[in-house]
């Protein structure tokens, strides 16, 4: 009795089919494992804060504290005017000039908004309005962010240009860093925001 012979071409075809099915099954298996691993990892939120007015200090801090409350890994890079938010003596203000969307108690032409004294008036008004409505203060949000483990990183370049010494910053923040450090940290972020 002779064993059935398989022609070379036919054998190659059978081997290819078998290998394909094995490889495909294994790839699916590994892919599912990776997905599960990804799902277990907390989400990562990277925010760049570039503005230092009272109103614009809110968005990065609100988003950061919310993300941290969801159990996410959150980092905020404070650069340019945003760096002022991290200063001990930050005295954030809001200007009415160039902000026609700002609700005013009386309609006011843009030119008048530039009068001396308008900025402190607007700042006091906004702080009062925020407080009346139950919005947390910037001080509270920063304290909460630190408590929740949000990484607050000051930009070294801005420090140098604006002449902010390291001693002018609040305690508990991350070491001074540059764009490279922040970007490499943010490279695998699930959400990246520029404010």
């Amino acid at each position, binding site marked *: 009795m002779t064993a059935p012979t398989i022609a070379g071409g036919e054998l190659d075809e059978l081997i290819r089919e078998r290998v394909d099915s094995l490889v495909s099954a294994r790839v699916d298996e590994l892919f599912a494992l990776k997905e599960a691993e990804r799902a277990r990892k907390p989400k990562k939120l990277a925010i760049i804060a570039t503005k230092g007015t009272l109103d614009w200090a809110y968005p990065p801090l609100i988003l950061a504290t*919310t993300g*941290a409350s969801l159990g996410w890994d959150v980092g905020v890079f404070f650069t340019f005017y945003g760096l002022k938010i991290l200063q001990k003596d930050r005295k954030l203000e809001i200007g009415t000039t160039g902000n026609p969307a700002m609700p005013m108690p009386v309609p006011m032409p843009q030119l008048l908004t530039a009068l001396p004294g308008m900025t402190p008036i607007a700042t006091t008004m906004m702080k009062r309005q925020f407080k009346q409505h139950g919005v947390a203060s910037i001080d509270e949000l920063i304290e909460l962010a630190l408590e*929740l483990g949000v990484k607050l990183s000051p930009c070294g370049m801005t420090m140098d240009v604006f002449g902010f010494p390291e001693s002018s910053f609040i305690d508990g923040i991350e070491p001074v860093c540059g764009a490279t450090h922040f970007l490499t940290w943010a490279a695998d972020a699930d959400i990246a925001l520029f404010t």
Partner: protein
Amino acid sequence: MTEALTVDQTLDCKGLLCPMPIVKLGKAIKLMDPGAVILLETTDPGSIPDVAAWSQSTGNPILSQDKTGPVMRFWIRKS
């Protein structure tokens, strides 16, 4: 149904706006024992979708919720 739930802690966030109700809820739930129930009271208009998203994202289920006038109440179990 909501009357039957035993509440271990009540968190009054009435009058507070975003992000405070969620931040306070997150902090409070961390200190609770698994299985314990917290009753959250809010008036922030975004609370219904926000608390739902927080619940789904953190895995702590909302057992029940209601709304009376401006006040929303959520019964949440720590998983």
